[in-house]
């Protein structure tokens, strides 16, 4: 599959501060790419370079194989973290303006505005000024304003911050819908909630460096820790010597789950056969770390690059 946007060894410095250090990444056509990182990691700087707002000091950005230029902006949609609308303009005028800025002809822009307002049941609000509509409504307008021109690549900086939960879900659905329509999406976030359900691919940025990158399933597989969970309806007594459970957890449904670390000596098969002898075994799974755990683990290790 070809890439829609690709960064190669991109560096950016503000004064003394190196905000992007040799970052390389590639977003495949039709995929959703998550940029994870704590606040101040350099996500916004990277995103601004990808969306042609700023230029890297060194390195290269390619859009569908060509060096990134201003003209490519017409094929991109961008929603910054800090966002706003013209308060004195009506919803429809505003959307029309953004659509035309993204290169649509006046007629196409009008059609797109109509389509999206109908899609989100907002036709009644078209003639209202932005200062007259609710904040939630303005958030929808904000999102629509960057997808009107049916972009090939949608770049979203912290798209879920500042949105109420209902709108956040709506935007999640819209992102998935756009993906099905062939739009690639790259978004940054410092929260993990939506990453696992949305992303095909992700990268963790920490202190201006990419410390981890891969498909979500790949990353999780690579972070396989050899931990297994076994569960019963009641507590059991363990006498496995060295291989004592790492933790015990009581679920709300009364299930008791023990976590074990397996190894070459104490294999998953050893655990299973031992576990079956302890009582009525109702649960046996490989523990796969969540992206959140991987993220916390990676960042707390000081962001040393992890080879995959």
């Amino acid at each position: 599959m070809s890439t829609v946007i690709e960064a190669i060894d991109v560096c950016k410095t503000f004064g003394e501060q190196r905000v992007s250090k040799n970052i390389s990444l590639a977003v495949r056509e039709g995929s959703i790419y998550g940029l994870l990182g704590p606040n101040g990691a350099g996500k916004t700087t990277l995103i601004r370079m990808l969306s042609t707002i700023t230029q890297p000091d060194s390195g290269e950005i390619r859009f569908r194989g060509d060096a990134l230029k201003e003209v490519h902006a017409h094929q991109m949609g961008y929603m910054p973290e800090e966002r706003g609308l013209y308060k004195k303009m009506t919803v429809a005028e505003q959307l029309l303006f953004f659509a035309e800025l993204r290169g649509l002809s006046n007629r196409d822009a009008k059609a797109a505005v109509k389509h999206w307002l109908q899609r989100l049941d907002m036709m009644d609000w078209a003639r209202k000024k932005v200062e007259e509509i609710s904040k939630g409504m303005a958030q929808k307008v904000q999102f629509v304003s960057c997808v009107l021109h049916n972009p090939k690549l949608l770049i979203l900086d912290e798209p879920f911050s500042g949105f109420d939960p209902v709108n956040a879900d709506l935007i999640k659905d819209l992102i998935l819908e756009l993906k099905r329509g062939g739009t690639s999406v790259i978004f940054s976030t410092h929260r993990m909630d939506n990453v696992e359900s949305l992303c095909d691919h992700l990268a963790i940025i920490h202190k201006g460096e990419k410390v981890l990158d891969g498909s979500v399933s790949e990353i999780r597989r690579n972070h396989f820790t050899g931990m297994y969970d076994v569960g019963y309806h009641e507590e059991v007594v363990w006498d496995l010597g060295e291989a004592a459970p790492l933790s015990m957890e009581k679920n709300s449904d009364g299930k008791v789950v023990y976590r074990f670390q397996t190894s070459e000596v104490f294999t998953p098969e050893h655990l299973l056969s031992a576990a079956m002898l302890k009582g009525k075994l109702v649960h046996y799974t490989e523990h796969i770390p969540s992206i959140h755990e991987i993220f916390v683990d990676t960042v707390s290790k000081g962001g040393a690059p992890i080879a995959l």
Partner: protein
Amino acid sequence: MKNIFVIFKREYLTRVKNKTFILMTFLAPLLMVGFYAATIYIATETGDDNRTKTVYLTDYNPSLMLSNNPPANYVFLPAPSNEDSAIADVKSGVVFGWLKVEDRDVRVIDSATYYTAETPSLVEMEGLKSWIEGKANKHQFAKLGLRESQIDSAQSRCDILTKEVSNSGDVQESSSALKSGIGFALAFMIYIFIFVYGSMVMRSAMEEKTNRIVEVIVSSVKPFHLMMGKILGVAAVGLTQFVAWIVLAVGLVFGISALFLNSGNGMSTQEAVQKGIEARTGMATVGAMGGDGAQVAESGSGVARDLAAEFTEPLSNLPYFEIIAVFLLFFVGGYLLYSSFFAAIGAAVNQESDVQQFMMPVTLPLVFGFVIAQTVALKAPHGAMAKLFSMIPLTSPIVMVVRAPFGVPFGELALSFGLLVLMFVLMVWLSSRIYRIGILSYGKKPTWKDLWKWLR
């Protein structure tokens, strides 16, 4: 280029469709005319003290015959012989005042005393003074053996007519007062418009920055295009308002002046207005036909040339095409130059209150240009100072316009405009560098040092 147009369109349409804009466009000429009319009304009608004043007159110099023909609004009564009772009557308000003229030569200081309960106005004092002087003069002339009719015929009056000799040898009537007036009015308009529309550009840039819209916009438009679209959009708003005002103002002024003055009394006024209108409406054709309108004025000229007639021929002889062309070119040039500064300021600051520190160096040359226009350029429109400041791009939009009615050689105009355009290109380039970084810089209040860093 398409993007500049999209920005331009938004800037233009949102402003022109704005209710305040529409209201002000229609109201401003009304306010202006109303203000003008009110000033004239107040000056002519209500300024005078119309009370009839009863005043005691003590005239120790009967040869002046002061009690004959008292000035308008005065009734003179002979004063009681007792000075104290005269003063008591002034104090109690039985009479307004007591005018005591000594038995002395009137040329001597303090030859008259005026007792009043309320301090008389300067105008009243001047009136009484010249009335007494008039009486005294007559008395003096009579002593020299001159009759009243002889005195009148000895009065002289002189008006100087200005005639300009052009390069081609044509001689045309002109008026320095008229040219100064027109030049000053045009300079004032440019001065005001640069401020009004320049700060419009500034507020627009600031709005986009504080509303955080700008980041979305610059992801599809170059900051330079955004800035240019904005500047040009507001310029178009200015020109629209301008055209609307001219149309409205001309209509109103003609309408009102015709109505007002025709109903007034006196043939001379009516004639003057008639001639004024003829001259003004005939301006374009007159200009084209080479000053035939002079006849209109000549017919009205006599010993007593009234105001309108006095300006009729100079009005028709003004280099209209040149004045309008200079005004438009230098207005647009000056606006573009200054609005690029204003745009950079708007982009640099985070809130309105931070604007002040950066405004000073921008407004200073503008104010300075206006001061130069008022003083040097009006006194000596072809002097070295006027020439110098009409060349410097920061002051030329104002100073050159003042000089325009007096006739500026084409070479000077071309050089000055060329410099203005050059300066504009340079400043737009510099401003766009500040703009580019400023619009995405939030947080602390920018300093001059920051701006300098952004420039490099």
